[in-house]
């Protein structure tokens, strides 16, 4: 990865925040209640945590120039961190402990409506052979 200076990083951050806002609205229109944005803990971060009925939805938002590039950006490492962070979040909110848990990815691409990938990954996808991981 190339080194980025402070101003560049700030711009990327702002870009990411705007993408999350778009993604949150896209989810609200699909009857998801947003419970938390930008959850951070030592185990990892989650961009959006939503609930739809009895299902908790943990969302990773990626903003890139193309959908393929955005999907590529969700690496095995980041998926593992999201899964770990989800456990932490549920432990802190025992009210939702008995819900189903779904892990989605929302791809935000310039010039089109955010693309919502439901059930994008699961816990056991991680033990694929190393070459298949990204």
């Amino acid at each position, binding site marked *: 990865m190339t080194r980025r200076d402070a101003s560049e990083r700030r711009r990327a951050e702002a870009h990411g925040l705007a993408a999350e806002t778009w993604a949150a609205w896209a989810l609200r229109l699909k009857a998801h209640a947003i419970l938390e944005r930008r959850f951070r803990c030592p185990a990892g971060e989650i961009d959006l945590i939503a609930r739809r009925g009895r*299902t908790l939805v943990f969302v990773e938002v990626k903003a890139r120039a193309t959908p393929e590039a955005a999907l590529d950006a969700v690496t095995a490492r980041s998926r593992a961190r999201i899964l770990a962070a989800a456990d932490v979040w549920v432990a802190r909110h025992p009210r939702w402990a008995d819900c*189903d848990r779904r892990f989605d990815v929302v791809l935000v691409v310039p010039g089109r409506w955010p693309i919502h990938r439901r059930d994008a990954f699961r816990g056991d996808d991680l033990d694929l052979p190393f070459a298949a991981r990204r």
Partner: protein
Amino acid sequence: MVARVTTVAFQGIEAVPVDVQVQITAGNPVFAVVGLPDKTVGESRERIRAALFAAGLALPQRRITVNLAPADLPKEGSHYDLPIALAILAAIGAMPGDQLLDYVALGELSLDGTIAAVAGVLPAAVAAAALDKGLICPADSGSEAAWASPDLAIVAGRSLVQLANHFKGTQVVARPTPKIREAVAGLPDLRDVKGQETAKRALEIAAAGGHHLLMVGPPGSGKSMLAARLPSILPPLEPRELLEVSMIASIAGELADGKLSDRRPFRSPHHSASMAALVGGGLRARPGEVSLAHNGVLFLDELPEFVPQVLDSLRQPLESGEVVIARANHRVSYPARIQLIAAMNPCRCGHAGTPGFVCRRGRRCADEYQARLSGPLLDRIDLRIEVAAVSAQDLILPPPTEGSAEVAARVARARLVQRRRFAALGLDGVRTNADMPAALVEEVARPDAAGADLLAAAATAMRLSARAYHRVLKVARTLADLDDRPTVGRIHLAEALGARGADPLSQAA
């Protein structure tokens, strides 16, 4: 809640019940299989996920734990897909779990949700009948399962959806019917062999008593031709033998279309065969040729060309009638009661002993070639005959009047005499003279006075080993049975001694 489905693990031809337990709990969606699954079983997760998707269902977004109990028994093979999928369906309420408790399930899933045939359905069906349960198996294996018991409830489904509908009661899957492979017409007939009357007689004796036979002769003398005609004079399998043979074939995945055949197996492995191929073994301790030839014939052509260690590994199964394969995590035994038919040339150039022929390397040619066979193995072969080259005069002769059908009738009669005798003695496992225990030989095959004199003289002159002594008596008993005589006479002993030969190899050379 834990959903359960019973399936089986295979140990030899035994099917051991295995309990598939599925628990679905709150948590990150993970699909974990525990209970010593090997790679094929672990991969079943991907097939199950795809098959459920094809059936219009998705795995629940929760933690799914699958346990295969007993957890310390290694689980191998692809047949765990179906029981795991059924247990998951029961756990999410898509199938009535209480009904599934009455069944043993096995089958492999394809990505499109169809159920693919697996090996070992017949032993699984027998185990299910013993557990007093029904069987859920692939449609293609249904007719194989139907052989186990007429009262066994069998659901042989094509796909997961069909099974789900069957248990919901919206679609009925009919019980499959047992199928038998039609007797193959046009087996090679003994009538095709011209001349070679001695060899034909030896083949008949071998067939009648289940004796091992070694044929030594130059190339082109018809050894392989004679061996290929042995199945045509052997009696068909009895029902119990048929089941044993089919169980082994089922484990090895060799039952085509789930049809059983009452023909005795005839296996002729190539001489490049490894030890694992011949006696069984490999990663999954699979049955080898010697087990696949159980209750039938193992034909080893070009005997000295086999690796000597491989041949000597046959000594134990020839004696005990079973193969025990011991591995780090397995100890598997397969039945292997075979009739060994072997053929060989007397020397490397192939013509030693033929009148008017001298090996270029002299006696060494035959000696070195024959030294590749160990004495203990040869000692176990009752009949060792020389098959001389066929002369042109023999070929001009009209075809012999006697064909396989006539010989088969005599063989069947002699086998009936033997079966009656051993049944009367209360010996359950013994069916032929070759199988009879040594202790019984003295009693059953006691020669008359003239015969006893001849045997005593021959035993000293030919320096017979204890085993050889008993084997001569067994062959003499078979000869008496072919003649339908209650006692073994001098003539029978003389022929038995002649058929054994002093040392067939030195004689041939």
